[in-house]
């Protein structure tokens, strides 16, 4: 066990966990922040996506010991960001969610895409979002909502 100081959504947190514990479980079980989801545990589905040091990161495979002082942003905090807020609004406007389990990860990835590429093409969207799986298969609406958030659609 070791103590780690981390910055989550702008707030300082201290956790005492085994160094090998992935960030996902630190968020969910230590900090009780269950918005970030466990879908596969092997970085294959994207449901665990958070922003680490500004980069979309799969929290299920990153041990707390490798976080360092990089700030963490989760789905609970992304609404404070103007791009995050726009994405959430577009998601609601276009009724993107069905069961909703993948959507935390989808939104975090979409925000990362839009921050890097404000006007993404279909290819940009497919490449960047292609690692976020949705069993309800709502991919078409996700693409529409991303374009809507980017201002490309009315």
């Amino acid at each position, binding site marked *: 066990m070791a103590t780690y100081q981390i910055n989550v959504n702008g707030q300082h947190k201290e956790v005492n966990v085994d160094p*090998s*514990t*992935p960030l996902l479980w630190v968020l969910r079980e230590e900090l009780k922040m269950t918005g970030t989801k466990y879908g596969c*545990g*092997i*970085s*294959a*589905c*994207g449901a665990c*996506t958070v922003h680490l040091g500004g*980069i*979309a*990161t*799969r929290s*299920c*495979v*990153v*041990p707390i010991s*490798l976080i360092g002082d990089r700030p963490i942003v989760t789905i609970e905090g992304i609404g404070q960001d103007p791009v995050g807020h726009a994405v959430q609004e577009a998601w609601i406007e276009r009724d993107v969610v069905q069961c909703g389990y993948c959507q935390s990860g989808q939104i*975090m*990835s*979409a925000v*990362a*895409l839009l*921050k*890097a*590429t404000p006007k993404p093409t279909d290819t*940009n969207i497919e*490449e*960047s*979002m*292609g*690692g*976020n799986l949705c069993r309800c298969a709502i991919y078409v609406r996700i693409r529409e909502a991303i374009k809507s958030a980017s201002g490309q659609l009315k």
Partner: protein
Amino acid sequence: MLANHRLVVRRVFLFILAVSVSWIALSTVGAFRNGKASPTDPKLADGLAAWEQVYSVLTSPRCINCHTATNYPQQGDDRHRHFANVVRGPEGKGVPALNCVSCHQSENADSTGVPGGPNWHLAPLSMRWQDTNDQILSSAVVCGAVTDRSKNNGLDGPGLLKHHEAEPLVLWAWNPGTRPDGTMRALPPLTHAEFVAATRRWVEAGTPCPRSK
């Protein structure tokens, strides 16, 4: 007239001799550069043998999985396409939301089975060692690519040696971490020390390349 004729003949002979010697000399030098020399020269033969050792490491999975000619990296000892639809991206670092560093951190994460090293990314296409069907290129072709300074980031022989000795992502191949199931990833066929020694012998022989088949 006979004396002039002899003089002319001698001069022509000397000229031809000079040209021949020059041509042989230049060819030999050129052979060091582009592998067209005869392997009967013992130093050359040793250099070529050393290259084959280097080639065996470069084409082992721990190295070649990131030296692809395609839009994606490979993974595993069977070199299958990397999962999660990750792609190369414009700089070999993935694309937004799916960067290499979205999962691969600066060190191995053995508890979760994800390998890691500083600045994890794909080798550029100029350093591809496979074809677009994921088939490994021949020893001659890989050697040509590795020694082409317009493609290899400007590295000369000593530069290549240093790269093999000290580049962190190269060193990673001998500390590749454990898979998610807890087993260790397979190491390259030589130890790092053997790899560096082979590289040194190859560089000292003038980085010769085998003849293309």
